[in-house]
Structure formats: C-alpha cells, structure tokens
C-alpha cells in the first residue's frame, strides 16, 4: 500500500516535471514579445535585452528550465512578473478560494446525488421518473446562464447576496458563506445532474444481481441491503465519475470565477496567461497537475477501501 502510493506520487512528479517543461518551452517562444509588451513604450532593443538578462531568459533553454525546477523543488517558484508577489503564496491564496467553492459544491453534489440516485433505483416508478427528470433539467440548464440569472435575482433585484467578490472564511464566516452561495448552487446543479444519473445507473445494475435476491430471501431488511451492500458495490463507478466531476469543476471554475469576480485559481490563471506572467503560469501548471494526480490517487484508495476486489495495490 505504502509502496503503491509512493509509486503513484513519483509518477505524478515525473508527469508534473514533463508538463512544466513543455509549458516552459512553449512559453519561451514568446519571451521576447512578452517583455516587449510589458515594457510597452519603454521597449527598445536595449531595454528588452536588459530585461531578458535580468530574468535569466537569455540563457540556453535547458539551463533556464533547470534553474526554475531547482527553485521549485526548494519551494521557490519565483515572483509574478506583474504583481511581484511570490508565486507559491499567490497560487495557494487563489487555490483556497477555488477549493472552498468546489469542495462545498462537491459535498452537496454527493449528498443530493446519493439520496436521489438510490431513492430512484430502489423505489422505481414515480421516484425514478422524478429523479431522472430533475437530472435531465440539471443537464439542460447552461451553467453560465443560470449564474447570470441567479446574480440578477438574488443580488441585483433582491440584494440578498453579493453580486461577486469573496470574503475569506477567517475574516467573516457568514459573509464567506454568502459570497460562495450562488457559485456553489450553479456548480451543484450541473454536478448533481451528472452524478445522480451515475448513482442511479449503478444501483439499478447492482440491485438486479443475484446476491441481492439471496440477501432479501434471508430476510435482511431492504434498507440494509440497499444501503450497506448494494451501495457499497455501486459506489466504484460513481466515485470515478465524481473525481472527473471534481477536476471538471476546477476547470469550470474559470467561467464561474469570471462571472462572480472571485479571485480564484481559474481567473488567476486566465489573467496570468493574458499578461504573459510566466512564473505564475508555470506555478499554476505545476500545482494543477499535482492536484489532478492527487485526486485520482485518493479516489483509487477509497475505491479499494470500499471494495477489496477493486484493489490495485
């Protein structure tokens, strides 16, 4: 188990290095243009050369990259070219914002999906049609439109919730909750639509299996059969979809963050790439890869814990 986790993490690091190297190489093609643009009217051949040298961007590419990597290994991802804040702390600050929205959304998504999905599969009939209908509606509503609509209703018209911006939890928990409410609702509707259908599907499969009939004939109560035995076996595929949903939410956060002016990971990445803020783009890529790898690993471990047959270690 320990060996397996270490192997997976090692592979993740190799992937992160490879990813950042490709990113670095692609960015390096426009280093000169980035510097020229940032110096705008102060850009002369001389001042551009000087700035390139200051940034160490005049060295051979592998040397530059390994300098960056060496710094990164020591926890120094450099400073933003634009705001001069250290990349590491900037990334972590932004990540906190995005994760606080995404994790809360994920919690609600799981709760709603399991309740609706299990209920639909176990009861069938009206419950099934209702849950499938809700899921379909959730799929059909475009998140962006919903976001704009909710902001208009709750913030602009009723003035109940802020139209955008973010208050850190540590500063004021109530205002924090209010600042993430609408973004969370938008993410949950899209997410729950996906996962509900997935839970329902695997539960229907699972409940039609022989062992369920056997358990029932032994007089074990329906509830226990459904929740203890079937759900446990059905959770594997649902978890995998959930992890994909999580990664998608992190990516989709960009749109949400733009609409709500949340200073999160997505909008941070977006602005950094618009401004050619190379150290930030590299930091974001590095942490992004690590995050995706960590999520997948955690899902595999939970799967193995729930279902020994699915263990890959």
């Amino acid at each position, binding site marked *: 188990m320990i060996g397996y986790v270490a192997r997976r993490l090692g592979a993740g690091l190799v992937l992160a290095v490879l990813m950042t190297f490709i990113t670095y190489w692609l960015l390096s093609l426009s280093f*000169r*243009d*980035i510097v020229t643009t940032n110096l705008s009217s102060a850009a002369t051949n001389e001042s551009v050369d000087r700035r390139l040298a200051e940034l160490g961007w005049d060295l051979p590419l592998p040397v530059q990259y390994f300098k960056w990597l060496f710094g990164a290994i020591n926890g120094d991802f450099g400073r933003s070219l634009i705001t001069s804040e250290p990349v590491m702390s900037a990334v972590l600050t932004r990540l906190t914002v995005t994760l606080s929205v995404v994790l809360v959304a994920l919690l609600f998504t799981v709760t709603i999906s399991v309740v609706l999905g299990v209920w639909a599969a176990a009861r069938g009939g009206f419950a099934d049609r209702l849950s499938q209908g809700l899921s379909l509606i959730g799929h059909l509503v475009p998140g962006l439109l919903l976001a704009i609509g909710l902001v208009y209703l709750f913030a602009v018209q009723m003035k109940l919730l802020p139209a955008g911006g973010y208050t850190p939890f540590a500063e004021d928990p109530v205002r924090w909750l209010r600042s993430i409410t609408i973004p969370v609702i938008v993410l949950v509707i899209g997410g729950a639509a996906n996962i509900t259908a997935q839970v329902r599907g695997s539960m229907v499969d699972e409940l039609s299996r022989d062992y369920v009939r056997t358990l029932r004939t032994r007089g074990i109560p329906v509830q226990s059969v459904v929740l203890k035995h079937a759900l446990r076996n059905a959770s594997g595929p649902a978890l995998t979809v959930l992890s994909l949903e999580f990664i998608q939410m992190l990516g989709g956060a960009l749109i949400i963050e733009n609409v709500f*002016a949340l200073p999160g990971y997505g909008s941070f990445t977006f*602005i950094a790439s618009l401004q050619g803020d190379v150290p930030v783009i590299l930091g974001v890529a590095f942490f992004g890869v690590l995050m995706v790898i960590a999520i997948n690993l955690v899902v595999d471990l939970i799967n193995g814990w729930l279902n020994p047959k699915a263990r890959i270690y």
Partner: protein
Amino acid sequence: MKNFSLAIQTPISSMEPANLNDGQAAYVWSAIYDTLLFVDHNGEVQPNGAKKWEYDPDKTRLTLVIRDDMKFSDGQPVTVADVVATLERSRTAKGLQAPALSAVASVTATDDKTVVLQLSRPDPVLLIALSQGAGAIAPAKALDNKDIVANPIGSGPYVLDKATVPGSSYVLTRRDDYWNLGAFPFPKLTFRVIADPTAQFNALQAGELTAGQLQPQQVAPMEAKGLKVTRLAGQAHLTMLLLDKKGELVPALADERVRKAINMAFDREGIVKAILQGAGKPTVQIFNPDSKEYNEKLEGYYKYDVQGAKNLLAEAGYKDGFSVTMPSTPYSTTFEPTVTQALGDIGIKVSWEPVPPQNTGAAIAGKKFPMVLYIDALPAAQKMIGTYYGPNAYTNPFRYTDPELEKLVAATATADEAERVELSKKIAAFATEHALNAPIAYMGGTIATDPGVEFVDPKSAMGSNVRQYEQAK
C-alpha cells in the same frame, strides 16, 4: 460620507516609481504617491508636490520648488534629496517611466527646496509626465528595497490597508496628516479587479461599487435604477496604424495615394452607428475632441468613397490591390469583419494573424506587421505627439520621418502655449493630409456613479485618478 469603490480590469503591476504604469493602475498609485505636478479637469498643469515651477527661456532648464509640508506615510518629511533620488532612479532604471524622462540629462538640488532638471532638448511633454508616474516621489532609502514593489511608501493622501489582496482588491485608507485633505473627500477607497464587464455591471447594480464604466447596452438599465450616468465624448480613439510607411514589408504603403485610399475605404458613420452603438463619433484625427488642439477644420476630410479609393490605388499602380497581414488582438476582434470587408471592397486583401494578448505591444513595436488596428486613450496632445509623430515614437517602429513633420514636432518643444496649440493643429493637419494613419472613430464612454458620488472630469483630462470623483453636493 461615502467611501469610494471602483472596478479595474487588471491587477496592478509594480508600485516602484520607475515602473509605474500610467493606465488604470494610476487610480491606485496616484492615491499613494504625491506627484510633483497635477493636471486638472481642464487639462491645465497645476502645482502639487512642487508649489512652483519655471522654465528658462530656451526651455532646457526646469526649476521646481518643493512644498515643505509633505510627509511620507512612515512619518519622515519629504526632502529635496528624496525628489532628486526618485527622479534619478526613474530616469536611469530603464523601466516603464524612463522614456518619459528621456530628455532629462541631470537632476540636482540647488538648495533644500529647489530641484533643477537640466534637459538635453526641450520636451513639451515633461510637465505632463511629472503629473503622472514620472513625477511620483518615494523616499530615497526605499528605492533599493525590493519590498517597494508591493508595499510602497509614499507621501500621498492614502496608504495601502492590510485588507488588500494583491491582484484581487486594493483597499486604501486616508491619512489624517495629509497636506491637501480637501481634495480627497473619500475616507476609504477600494479598487476591485473585475475583468469581466458583466460581472462589473452586476457589482455596480448591486451597489457594491460606487462608480464604473458602462458598455453601450448597459446604459438604459442603469439610468432606470437611479444611478447617475455621465456620457463622455471621447475616451479613446480607434485607429488603423499604417506603420510601414517606408514600405519595408508592404511596398504599397510607402505611397501616399495608397494610404489615402485606405482612409477612404471606411464608412466611419456606419461603424460608429453599428459597432459602437452610437457611443462615439467619426474622426480623421486623433487629438482629444475636447481639447484645444483638436482641429475641427479636418472633420470630413476623407469621405467614404470606394470608387475614389480604387482609382487612387490604380493610379499608384495597384489596380489589382495587394495583400496585408494584420495582428488579431483584443482591440481588433470586434472590428475585424468590418475592416476585412471595407479594405476588401477596394482590393486590399486582409488576413488576420492571431496574437496572444500579452504580445499586443510587440505586434506594434516589433516591426512584424505593416498595419495594426489599435485603440488608445486620449492623453494631452503633447503626449500624443510623442507617441504618434515623433521620429522615435512607439507607434513608429519603422522610423518613418518627414522633414516638414519633424520641424513642426521640434517646434512644439520650445513654443509658448498659444503657439503650441497652433502647431499641434498643423501636425494634425499634416498627419491627415499625408494619411500617416487611418483614424476611424473616437470611442465615447459612459460612467455610472452612485447618487452619492459625482464624476467631475467630463473631458477625461486627468487620466486615471481618484480626483475624477467627488462626494455629491
């Protein structure tokens, strides 16, 4: 007493004086730093950190007398040594502000209140520059401290509050011991970074911002909500820069007739009506239409005339037209189909090469493209002359020169005010008659403010400065 909050589109870059950006970032840094001079809403230069200034007769020596009641936020008085050190640093550091001080050969203190700038050539933009980033004053001892980039020490009316989250919101609180408190009526300023216009509009509607820029279609709902809406005639100009006037990439552009033809290809009224939704006006020149330098005689100089343009091209030997590649940038996307069609109609085939936003500046200054569609603000005419018509201008990467134009531009440096205005009008006329570029329209703007706040800079003469706003009477 209302506090003031405004949305800005991008995070603030460095707050080190040598690297101050005179765009939207100026809202934040101009509240933190005192500048030596100040431009009021009529575009006139006024005293600020310097209470008096004087040029010698041949305009190569500028003497400034510094106020004696300025204090930095760390409690230290502002001395003449701080002024000299900051100007020297901004002049030599090769940062964003170096070009603004390029005419300055030396900065010296002659006594404990007087600073003398010795110039290598007269510079008509210098006074304006000293009211912007090039005139910001920081403590001499802080200039070498890396921390100044994010935690500036200034002598201005506000200090950065610890509630600031760089890149997302900048919170400033007013100092009680500031020498000119009367000019700064807001106890607290908040500048939130909101890139998306819709998100900004929502925040404005929800009352989370006290002022903001509106898109044309957002005006009616705002007025319905009881916010005050101020329409500004000209905030920016939309111009097709004809960079390659020497014909290095596209030989045709070296021919004045071809450049005139391009000017005749645009239906300027149609573009204002359809694309700018009426928020703007057609133009063939670029000086601020609210300024004295604006030359109304030029209006309508180029009529929309496809056949006439074709005849000119044929005369120049391009009966079958030619092809150009232009960069596709955030400025150009909205206008690309129109430009492609307008130039296509007279036989010029345009292809657009996507350029990432961070390379927009390089697309202009890098000699890669013969023509660029550009949107730029409308600062003081003397500054615009430097950006557009000087031999080393930012928008003149191919270094096109013309003896007559050079003479006019050089003369503005030593002229008195009335002469300078006349010369500027002549420069505008020269640029129009010789089709140095193809200006298309002034783009208007609309500012919405909370009923408690008033916008007092209708000509947009101040640049991005919190003094554009006051408490409503």
